Structures are given as C-alpha cells and as structure tokens.
C-alpha cells in the first residue's frame, strides 16, 4: 500500500494518482537497481551478507520492501524514453548498487560468458537460486491461470462490454499512459504493432500456424500476448521497471512458455483467437478511453506474497540473464490494451522477431523443397563471370580493331522515320519571328549521343534566324550545355538558365505563375529570362530517358497547345516516345544515331562502321543463345526418350 502525500488515503503500490483526492502520487517508474543514497547506505550495511543469506531473505520476501519503498518514495526522476530504450546500458553503468546485487550481477555475467561445462559446475547456491526461481514461476503461473478463470466468470462487463478489471485499471491511470515510461513502451509497441502486423501478414501467419503449429510451438519462449515480437529484446528492463504499476488483476492475461501440467500446451494458443487481437480489436479500446474513468479504487485487497516479490525481482532476474523469466512478468503484456484477459493467447504473437524469422525461413525451405534452389545459382555464378569476361573482351576487341583499321566515319543515309519527318517539318516551319526554347534534360552518360543530333538542329535554327533560349533542369546540365554551345558556336550565344525542382518547377513555368501573390511578392525559382513556356513557339526538349519525357508530357504538355513540344532523344527512349507522338502530344522526335542519319547529317563525325560491327556482334550472340538453348532442349528430349 502507498499512502497519498496529499490526503493520506491508502492506494495501491502502483497507483499514479490517488483514488481519494485525485492528486499525483509521485514518480514510480524507477529502476530498482538505482537506489537512492539512503538505500545505498542501508544496503552497504548489509553488504557483507553472503548470497545464501540474501537468498534466504529473498524467500521470506522482506528484503525488497525497503527497495520498493525507496523506489516509490524517492524523488528520483522518471526514466525518460531513452532510458527505456537502452535500460541495460544504464543499469550496467551503475556500479553503486548494493553489494549482494553486485555479486549476483557478477555471477550472472560469469554465467553468460560461461560455456556448457561451466553450467555443469553450478554451485549449490546457484542451484538453490535456480530452483527457487522455478518454484516462483510455477506458483505465479498457477495463480495466474486460476485468476484468469475467476476473472472470466466473475468480472462483470459494462454496457460497452468493458470488463470490470479493465475499467479499474483505467481509473488508476486516467490520463492515459503517454507520459510514463510504460506508456512510451506501449506507444512504441503500438507503432510496431501497426508496422508489423498487417492483415496480409496475419493471414499468412495464420495459415502458417495451421501448417506448422508443432514447429512454432517449440520456438515459443517469447513474451506473452501483446508482447510484440522483438519487444522483449528491445525493452525488457523498461518493461520490468514499469511492472510496479501493474494491477494484480491483470496477471491472468500473462502467458509464458513454461509447460503446464494442468494446461496442455496445445490448448493455450488458439489460431481462432487471431482476428480478435488484430488492429480492429484495438479500435474499440480507443473509443473506450473517452469514457469517464471510474473513481472507484481498484484492487484494495492486499497483494499475495508472490505478487509483492515479483516486481522487484524482475530487474534482478533480468540482470541475471534470466530474460525468459522476466518476460513472463512483462508489464507490457498485461496492459489494459490486452484484447483478451484470458490465458488463451494467439500463437502468432508469442513469437519473438528472431523466432518469427526462423519460422519464415523454415517455411520458405519447405516451400522450396524440390524446386530450383539458390545454391544452384551460386554454382552458376562463376562460369557466368568467365563467359561475361570472354564475351566482353570479344566485343571490345572487335570494336578496337575496327576503330583502328577502318572506322568509316560517315553515317550512311537512311529512310527517315515518320516521327523524324514530322520533327523536320516542325523545325522547318519556324521563321525569324519565332522563339524556341531549348531544354537540356540529359545526363553526361548520354551526352555523346545527344551531341550527335543537337548541333545539327541548332545550326538549322540559326540558319533560319530563329531566336532561341536555353534552359536546363539538371545541375550537370550547366556544364553539358556549355560544352554543347561550344560545339554549335551560335550567332548569339544564349546564357544557360537553371530551373530547380523538377516537377515542382515545371508546373509554375508551364502556367506562368510568376512571383506575385495578392499578399505580396516572393522570391521565385523561375529563371529571370524565362517566366512562361507559353511564350515560345516550340519547345525543343533534349532528354535521354523515358521518365523525363513522361514528366514533361504530364506536367507541361497539358498546359500548352498541342504539338508545341518536339523531342530530341536517345535510341533507348524512342519506343516509349512513340505513343506520345501517336496521340499527337509531341510534334515529332529524333532518336539517336538512326535519325541522325535520316536527317542527312553526313558531315557528323562518328565511326559508323564500328557501330555496325557492335550491332553485328550482338546479332550473332543473340542467335547463338537461341541455337544453344534449342540444342540443349533437343538433347534433353533425346535423353528423356532414351530413359523411357
């Protein structure tokens, strides 16, 4: 019992507010290992006690009384969220604990580092300690199951279906749990819950549970219901620290992995309970939080001996490396958010994250039984590397040899495509009074191909005395355009304008949304000289990818009259530009070397014969691949027939 400092009324040890006067009770969320100076003094007096004596006193249950009392009464600051996230570090950095606790810690550390042989050499004290812990666990479990049964039958539910115990728990924490460490843990849990347990996953897990129930059962030392996978790994101590505020009535909701003789393991997790603990199950919970909390004090009856012992034991057990024991007492598992306060828990939620991963791995292994497996691919990797090297060297050698012997620098003239003809028409229709905007939206990688086409086009514009401005939408476009202009050497060299922001910048430019609002001017991203794309008779878009072309078609073209955009692009983009040309959204397009030849630019310097050799090599390799595959299939069929 805790006495309220304001009215003197009696409250439960874990109460955050007084049930009589409603005032704050003080800080409760403290690490039990972090004693106050008074505790340390008191404990230092008994520091010379042997572990056996400590254990004896532990059994009697009176040793933790001063610690618990100090924890609840001391003005220690509440652990922050960070502390709850990394509590182990905090505790391990506290060398000022009581002597007996330090010894237990040391022993636990030794046990952690020890090997299997060390475990065999347990001292009598250790065995005694372990036996005692086992007994506590059994007793707790039995108590919990009994209370669960009693709670199921005895606890009345209100009109909204909220059980009595749940209303009492809420009454103890009317502000919700956001401010507490425990609340933070729950909040995190809820986040992760949403993140992890989607409907699809639950469905898959449910199926998996039905398929693989025996395997999963064996890997179930995880936290209890609502013990979100991985939660125990991340915040055991935070949970243990918050255990102090747990109402005893909620213990039945706990679930653990200890085989129960009375309750067969198969009967505990029920796959059919799954739908009730998914997200929809939490929704009514949120609604219920708005109902006025009951002022009735909950659980006035004295807690049992074990219930007194367990909260303070948790940090010790945790420090001793007995995480599974602590997990059984995990307060997060028994919070009011629990959808079902019974011993029945969904089997899915019993899994730790690692265990879930193992289960998934096992499942995938079962699925892959008899199918093509990854090791087969791994064995293929090496020959593929060699063949890649050989083929690459073959192509490289062919290209270099042709380049040295006979590069053939003139690109042969071809029949122009329909789109290239339309592009030429659009360009030819421009006169001296027209304005064109050249937009360079390509990368340095494709600059060589773009620079095969663009100089011819720009020189034609110059010849027709068309005025043209330059805009780039890529940072690298600044130097790429400079390099391009050097090649073209125009009559009036335009300055290169930069438009940042991609789609964000294109829409204002297409609509002429300047820098003016009714409330005043702002610094606009639009270039000084180019404020509205509708001012231009033709926009010459030089882009090298389908994505950039699509961005222009979607963010700019709808705001302009049809056929205002003509595209100069690479050969890789040509197939994806065809639909836009067919629908009349672009006036025409040139795509790479093919159309450069169609434009009749014989003067362009490019080793065309080397290009043809490269194409020929690929043609041969493609045919070779087909022939090899056909040959393999034929051989396989012959082998099959032979076997038959």
């Amino acid at each position: 019992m805790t006495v309220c400092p304001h009215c003197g009324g009696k409250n439960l040890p874990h109460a955050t507010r007084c049930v009589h006067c409603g005032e704050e009770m003080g800080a409760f969320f403290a690490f039990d290992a972090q004693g106050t100076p008074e505790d340390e003094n008191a404990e230092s007096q008994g520091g010379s006690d042997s572990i056996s004596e400590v254990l004896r006193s532990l059994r009697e249950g009176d040793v933790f009384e001063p610690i618990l009392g100090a924890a609840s009464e001391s003005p220690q600051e509440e652990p922050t969220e960070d502390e709850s996230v990394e509590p182990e570090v905090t505790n391990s950095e506290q060398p000022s604990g009581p002597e007996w606790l330090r010894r237990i810690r040391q022993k636990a550390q030794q046990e952690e580092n020890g090997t299997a042989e060390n475990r065999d050499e347990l001292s009598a004290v250790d065995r005694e300690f372990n036996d005692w812990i086992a007994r506590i666990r059994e007793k707790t479990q039995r108590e919990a199951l009994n209370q669960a049964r009693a709670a199921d039958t005895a606890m009345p539910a209100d009109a909204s279906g909220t059980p009595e115990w749940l209303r009492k728990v809420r009454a103890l924490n009317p502000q919700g749990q956001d401010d507490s460490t425990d609340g933070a843990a729950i909040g995190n849990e809820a986040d992760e819950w949403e993140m992890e347990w989607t409907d699809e996953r639950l469905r898959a897990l449910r199926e998996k549970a039905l398929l693989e129930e025996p395997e999963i059962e064996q890997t179930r030392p995880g936290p209890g219901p609502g013990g979100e996978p991985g939660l125990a790994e991340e915040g055991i101590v935070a949970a243990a620290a918050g255990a102090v505020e747990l109402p005893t009535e909620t213990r039945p909701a706990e679930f653990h992995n200890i085989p129960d003789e009375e309750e067969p393991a198969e009967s505990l997790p029920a796959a059919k309970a799954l739908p009730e603990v998914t997200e929809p199950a939490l929704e009514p919970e949120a609604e219920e939080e708005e109902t006025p909390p009951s002022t009735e004090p909950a659980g006035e009856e004295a807690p049992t001996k074990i219930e007194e012992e367990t909260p303070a034991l948790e940090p010790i057990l945790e420090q001793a490396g007995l995480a599974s024991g602590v997990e059984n007492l995990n307060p997060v598992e028994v919070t009011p958010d629990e959808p079902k306060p019974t011993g029945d828990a969904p089997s899915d939620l019993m899994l730790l994250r690692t265990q879930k991963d193992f289960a998934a791995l096992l499942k995938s292994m079962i699925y892959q039984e008899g199918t093509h497996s990854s090791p087969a691919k791994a064995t293929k990797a090496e020959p593929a590397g060699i063949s890649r090297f050989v083929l690459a060297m073959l192509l490289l050698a062919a290209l270099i040899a042709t380049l040295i012997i006979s590069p053939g620098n003139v690109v042969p003239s071809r029949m122009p495509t329909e789109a290239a003809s339309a592009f030429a028409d659009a360009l030819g229709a421009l006169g001296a009074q027209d304005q064109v905007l050249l937009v360079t939206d390509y990368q340095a990688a494709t600059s060589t191909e773009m620079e095969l086409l663009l100089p011819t086009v720009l020189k034609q514009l110059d010849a027709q005395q068309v005025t043209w401005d330059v805009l780039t939408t890529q940072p690298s476009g600044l130097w790429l355009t400079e390099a391009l202009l050097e090649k073209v050497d125009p009559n009036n060299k335009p300055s290169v304008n930069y438009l940042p922001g991609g789609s964000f910048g294109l829409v204002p430019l297409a609509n002429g949304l300047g820098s003016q609002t009714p409330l005043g001017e702002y610094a606009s991203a639009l270039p000084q000289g180019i404020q509205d794309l509708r001012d231009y008779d033709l926009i010459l878009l030089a882009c090298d990818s389908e994505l950039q072309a699509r961005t222009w078609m979607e963010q700019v073209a709808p705001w302009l009259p049809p056929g205002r955009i003509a595209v100069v692009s690479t050969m890789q983009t040509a197939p994806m530009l065809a639909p836009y040309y067919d629908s009349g959204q672009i006036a025409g397009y040139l795509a790479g070397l093919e159309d450069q030849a169609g434009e009749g630019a014989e003067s362009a310097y490019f080793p065309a014969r080397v290009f043809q050799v490269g194409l020929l090599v690929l043609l041969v390799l493609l045919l070779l691949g087909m022939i090899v595959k056909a040959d393999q299939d034929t051989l396989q069929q012959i082998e099959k027939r032979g076997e038959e």
Partner: protein
Amino acid sequence: MSSVDLALGLVGVALTIMIFSYILGDNLFFRVGLYVLIGVAAGFSAAVVITKVIIPLLYVPLRTPGTPAFYWALVPLVLCALLALMLSPRLSQAGKIPLAFLSGVLAALALFGVSRGTLAPQLLATIGRFSPALLMQASQINWAGVIEGVLILLGVIATLFFFHHRQQVKQVGGGSLLDGMSSVGQIFMGITFGALFIGLYMTALVALISQLNWVKDFITSLL
C-alpha cells in the same frame, strides 16, 4: 595542346581505364573511379543547390525583414530546419513533416498530370482509331485502318491484362481465354522489350565507341 587540356585528358584516360577494368571483375581501380564520380557529382550538385536555390530563395529574402518575401520565406525555413533535424537519429521523426508536405504536393501533381498527360490522351488515342473519319474513306471502309485499330486495341488490352494479372494467371491458371489473352499480352510486351533492349544497347554502344574513339584520338594527339 595546353597543359590544362593535357592534364584533363590524362585524368580522363585514367578514369576511363579504371572503369573498364570492371571487365576483369570488381576491383580497387573500378571502385576508386566510382567513388570519385559520386564525390564529384555530390559536391557539384550541392554547390549548385546552395548557390542557385538556398541562397537566392531562402537566405536573401530572410535578410530583408518586414517585407512580404521575408514572411513567405519563413515557412520553407521551418520545413528546411525540420528536414535538417533528420541528420540526428534522435530527431529524425521531425523530418516526417517536410517529407509529408513534399509527398502531398507530388501526389497532387502526379494525380493531375498523369490523368491529363498520359492516361486520358493514351486511352483516347486508342479509341480514336475507330473514329468514322479514319475508318471511312470516300464512303468505303478503310479495312487497313480497321485492322490496325483492332490490333492496337487488342494489344493494349492484352498488355494491360498481362501487366496486372500475370501473377494470378501464373498461380491460379485462368482457363483458355485468360491464358490466350495473357499470351497475346506477352507477345506485345516481348516486342516492346526487344525494341527497348536494342535501343539501350545502341545507346550504350554509342557511348562505348565514343569513349574508345576519344581515347584513341587523345593518344594519337600525344604521339
């Protein structure tokens, strides 16, 4: 050739060889070349963004307090500050707000732009093949136009079908009609992929030949 051009040319040749050394497998030189590219590109992009966006659009307006431009710049200032907090792992949650702002704006632009710029025009262009003006020529049926229209419509539907339902067809099996539709879709997709594959190869080949040619020219000029 000036000394600067010579130095730049040598650097270019060295970097080219470093990248092509990947043919021998992933190695130190290839990685150094790659990291140089990342470093230079990142540094240049950062310099451009700072000098062309952050300074003129954010810093300059904030130097003139009391003006409308000053007040309008406060909003992006706050959003940028929240974004900068993402560099700290503890405060990274603050960056969700500016990212949410960008996501919302981008979603709206995409919704409006895609529907007006791709979806509607492409659907209309597919259906437009069946307009009477195209199908009738001098009161005669233009059979070539009809066949072309049907072929395109069928191809688009089959491709869309394969695009969206390939997993279902693969897992469940869809009966002869659905399988047939899926096969037609695969054929049209295959044709497009073949064209894209060759297009990409030709673009890459042009880049390869250009670079080899540039190295050859540079070495020739040295000799």
